[in-house]
Structure formats: C-alpha cells, structure tokens
C-alpha cells in the first residue's frame, strides 16, 4: 500500500509549508480552546504521512518549521526538529503498525503532539527561557494534545476526500 501512495511536487510541499506557517503564526494562533492552540502544521504533517508519502510530509514539516523558527523567539531549530521528529514518529507508526486502521491515526496525532511539545520545551529550557513545567503541562500541553487529536478528524476527512479524488482520476486497470 505504501508504494501506491502518490507523491507531490517537492516545491509544492515547500510552498504549502510556508503558507501553513504564516497561517499558524497569524490567524490560528488567535484561536485558543481551554488554553491550548491547535497546531495546523502538526495535523497536516500527520495527515500527509498517513495518506501520502513520508518524505513529502517530512519536507512539508521542515519548511513550515523553518519559517516558524524564523518568526519565533525560541532558539533557531526548535520547530524544525520538533516537526521532523513528529513526522518521523508518524511515519514509523504508520509503516509498521497501523496500516489501514483508522483509529490509529488519532493515536498518531496525539503521540506526535506529545513528542513535538517535549522537544519544544527542551529547546526552550536549553535556550535559557523560563520553563514552568507543571504549569505548562497542565495549562498548555494537555489541552493542546486534546485539541490536536480531536481537530485531526477534520484533517482526516480532507485527506480522505483528496485521496478518493486522486483514485477516481486514475485510469482503470481493465
């Protein structure tokens, strides 16, 4: 099944990554639910890895992470490594465990969010930012994991729609 997945033009991956980063830092960051902020880049990375090719998802995550790093006060590289690690984790689980098992997708998003947040917090701590661990876990990380896991449903539907359309456009075998 993995080999059947269509690849996307790498430059398009880069461009979409930049657009996602701009949206994340402008409009999406204003949406706060229970203290957490939905991470559209992370959800897109997971959907891309699930429905498409892992390297395309990784490239998208890295380009979005590059722009996020440029805009953020966090040490440079924090977002890139966090998105890359999340894409690799999603790819490993998708490749080895969850092929075709829909519920596993939501597990992947939850785990990818936890990994992403841990890496970001470690970068912030190493970069000299004040990290209030308990406060951060309770008031930001847990709400973010819940929001991303639930919100990924919408991204899953979009991914399903795009995949079905691509399959419909393919010429028949017979």
């Amino acid at each position, binding site marked *: 099944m*993995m080999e059947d997945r269509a690849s996307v033009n790498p430059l398009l*991956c880069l461009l979409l990554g930049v657009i996602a980063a701009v949206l994340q*830092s*402008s409009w999406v960051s204003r949406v706060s639910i229970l203290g957490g902020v939905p991470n559209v880049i992370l959800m897109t990375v997971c959907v891309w890895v699930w429905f498409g090719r892992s390297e395309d998802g990784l490239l998208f995550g890295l380009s979005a992470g*590059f722009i996020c790093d440029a805009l953020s006060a966090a040490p440079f590289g924090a*977002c890139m490594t966090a998105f890359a690690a999340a894409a690799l984790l999603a790819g490993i689980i998708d490749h080895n465990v969850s092929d075709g098992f829909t519920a596993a997708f939501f597990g992947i998003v939850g785990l990818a969010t936890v990994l992403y947040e841990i890496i970001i917090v470690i970068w*912030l701590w190493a970069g000299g930012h*004040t990290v209030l661990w308990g406060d951060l876990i309770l008031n930001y990380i847990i709400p973010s994991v819940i929001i991303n896991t639930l919100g990924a449903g919408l991204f899953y539907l979009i991914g399903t729609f795009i995949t079905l359309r691509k399959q419909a456009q393919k010429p028949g075998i017979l």
Partner: protein
Amino acid sequence: MKWKRGPAILIIILCLLAFSWFILDQLGISNPLSDLVSTIIAPLQYSANAISPTPGEISGAFVSEESLREQLRAAEDEIAQLRAQIILLQEAELENESLREQLDYKNTSPSYTLLSAEVIGKDPVGELDYLIIDRGSQDGLQVGMPVVAPEGLIGRVSQVAQASSRIMLITDPSSSVTGIVQSSRSSGLVEGETGHYLVMRYIPQEDTITEGDVVLTSGLGSVFPKGLVIGQIIEVSRQDIDMFQTATLVPSVNLFDLESVMVITNFDSTMLDELEEE
C-alpha cells in the same frame, strides 16, 4: 522505503540552511537571513491577519438580538457613570493646576512619543507569549522599547527586523517587571505565568494588599516608565511562615485579542535615573 531524489535534496538543503542559521545565531553575528525572511513573511502575515476574522468577530456573529439590547443598556449606563466621573476629574484637575501654580511645582513627568503598530501575528510556538508587529528598524524601533495600550502595559520590544518586530508580553514566563500596589505602595516583582496570568512576588509580609488593588510599574530597574497599569490583584496568598506574600494578577490589557499596540519610542532608561538623582 525508497526515497525519491527531489524531496531528499530539498530536505538536505533546508537542514544545511537551518544549521548555518543556528551557528550564526550562536556566534551572535547579525543574521542577514533573518531580516530577509522577516521582510518576506511580514506582508503575508499582515494579509492573512487582515482577511481572517478575529475570535471576537466569530463569536459576535452568533449573538442574539436580546443579548445585544442588554449589552447596549449596560454600555449606556457605563457611559453615564463615566461622564459623571469625567466631570469630577476635570474639577480635580483644575484644583491640581491651581495648587501646582501656588507651590511653583516643577513638572518633572516626561511626555512620551507613541508609535502605533498593528499586531500581525503571534509566536508560532504556543509556549511563548510573544507578538509580532508591523513596525521595525525602518520606523525607528529598538530593542527594549516599552509597548503599551490605552489600558496599560503590554511588554517590550525583544527583537527588531527591518519591517517587523517581536514583542515579549508581560505574561511570558521569562518576563519580569518591578511593580507597586497603587493603594498600599507595596512593591514586588511581577512575573508572567502560563495561562495569561501574572504573579507578583516578594511583597513584604507586613504590607496590606487586597483583591481588587491595582498594580502599577514602579520604574525601578529603568526598564519601564513609572506609573503604567500592569493589572489587578485577583488573589492573595499569605502564609505566616513565609517572608513574603504573593498575589495573582489579571493583566489590565486583554493580551489575547490585541489588534494594535503603541510603542514608546523616546523612553530612555537613563531618564528615570536622572529624575531620581534630582
């Protein structure tokens, strides 16, 4: 899994670019890439921000007519009360002027030059409380300049690019401001907390502070001008065994829904030192 050449090459280029950026940052060398990316991204952020509705606009679309009528009535009552207060304040101002003249009082309070700026984004890393504004070095902004709103203090400029700047909000955990309680004149250190709250620490145990008290900048440390409203106390934590008491504050400015801010461009930290010497 077999990787395709196109994405692999781009991934390597991106990683090399990021690595060189990281090294430049670590060496403290001025990074031309940073300015270039900020200059390209700032207009995109501005456009994305301009075409997208704010959370307030989204929730406003679902407000019932009855609720709007109630809000209008409440607003009218508030206007009436504020008008009465303005009259009283004008009287007090006139009295103040006359007393100043009688005492030949030297007006030492400096007047500040304000530069308005639009908020075009927030830090994409949610753990950090930073804003991105559409003014930069080409507008005369410098690192350390205080940022305010009509309701009070917002933060200070932490990084300046050519066409945009980054503002560290007072709610960021790395932010600290010396504050003073307006009523009791108790001083302490106001620090940011995750979840858009502030905590005022190191308030002497013997000082009386209560919920509802307003906290202002003290001007100590010369980072912020004196007398700006920081927030209001909502909870006081006092234990007999502690040397100090702690208060939780809600910021006077709604930092989450900010659309525009003002930067004090002529605040010189030495100005306060000179005043103190006088």
